[in-house]
């Protein structure tokens, strides 16, 4: 299992916005730091929930694993593949699209593969550039995200959108999500609580200039916890597209947890 922590994070951080991943692929790092104040985002709920105590993490992780209640198992059962953003700057949209797909899977809706390109295009003016992750989520809340049948996954320009894409996107909106705020002493615990509840968390890391989707809380070694995340660098990254970010370096600068997507089967 790929674990990123204080000892090796520089190996994963890029230079001048570019990193070469483990498979030798050149990846563009393009997630902008958070700017929106908590409480200003549409449909977003403030992070006003009780935290699950740390002394329960270990036993809860065991219970979740034993029951197959972890989100990684859910994504595998639902056959949701790893995204690959290839050479684009769309990590922010990839993170959100996977977050919406995980929420839909948790609700029991049919598996549809959503297109990150249908999120990033409108918020960047159909240019290949970085963005604020909160803008992606606002786009998904307002207009939704179309399936790859209507918009290719890494589509940049408007030209590749098929007729009916906007109508299709309305079937896949976020109707409730939690704005988890900025990095502070409780950010790790807020993310951990949502993951233990079964909700994915879309996160941005300033040191990485990158956005990924947190999937599950894991215990790296006794009493040491981290977040299992799914990257958007294809299935060859880490373990079938997954890695672990240890507490500390893995505590995100911005985090948003999709809770409820549109109740639509298609």
């Amino acid at each position, binding site marked *: 299992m790929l674990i990123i922590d204080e000892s090796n994070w520089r190996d994963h951080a890029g230079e001048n916005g570019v990193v070469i991943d483990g498979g030798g692929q050149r990846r563009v790092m393009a997630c902008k730091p958070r700017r929106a104040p908590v409480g200003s985002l549409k449909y977003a709920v403030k992070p006003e929930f009780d935290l699950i105590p740390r002394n329960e993490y270990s036993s809860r992780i065991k219970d979740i694993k034993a029951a197959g*209640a972890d989100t990684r198992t859910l994504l595998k059962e639902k056959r949701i593949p790893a995204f690959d953003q290839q050479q684009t700057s769309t990590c922010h949209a990839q993170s959100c699209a996977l977050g919406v797909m995980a929420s839909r899977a948790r609700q029991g809706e*049919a598996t549809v593969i959503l297109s990150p390109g249908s999120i990033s295009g409108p918020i960047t003016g159909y240019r290949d550039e970085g963005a604020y992750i909160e803008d992606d989520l606002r786009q998904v809340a307002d207009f939704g995200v179309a399936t790859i049948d209507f918009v290719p996954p890494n589509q940049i320009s408007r030209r590749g959108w098929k007729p009916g894409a906007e109508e299709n996107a309305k079937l896949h909106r976020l109707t409730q999500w939690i704005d988890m705020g900025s990095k502070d002493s409780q950010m790790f615990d807020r993310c951990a609580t949502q993951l233990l509840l079964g909700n994915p968390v879309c996160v941005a890391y300033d040191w990485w200039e990158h956005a990924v989707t947190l999937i599950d809380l894991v215990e790296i070694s006794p009493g040491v916890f981290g977040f299992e995340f799914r990257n958007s660098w294809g299935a060859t990254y880490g373990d079938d597209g997954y890695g672990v970010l240890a507490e500390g370096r893995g505590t995100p600068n911005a985090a948003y947890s999709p809770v409820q997507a549109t109740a639509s*089967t298609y």
Partner: protein
Amino acid sequence: MKKWLPIILALLASVIASSGCVRPHQGPPIPVVPIVAPIVTAPIRVVIVKDNATANRLPSAQLAALNSSNLRNYCQSHCQLGPDGRTPEFRTYTWDADLRMQSQGIRDAFNDAVLNGKSSGVPWLVVNNGTTGYSGPFPATDADLMAVLKKYGGE
């Protein structure tokens, strides 16, 4: 030939009885077991309504059961299929979900859960097979949950 038939049958019976092949029943009377038709269970519909804001207070075992693969797998094979002909009618929503695009059956079960369960503040489970079912607090463990499901959806 006809007049010899009763005599032949009587002789045959006496030979069989004397050989010990058939013994008269002795001891307590054999209870009469009624023949019962097997219970036919129809495909079920399952809807769970939860409150994300309070889910962190649920006991660990109950929360794990809520998201368990046992629940998903059972529903995958025992729930009726939705309008698309392939998605099982099994959903988990928060109280304030908008179900305008869902089937009438899912909406009815959801409304039942909201009506009965909202005041209790616990996750609510609705299981129905078209004729009977369960509407009550979400069971505390995976084993309890499976017992409820199997009662209405069969093994």
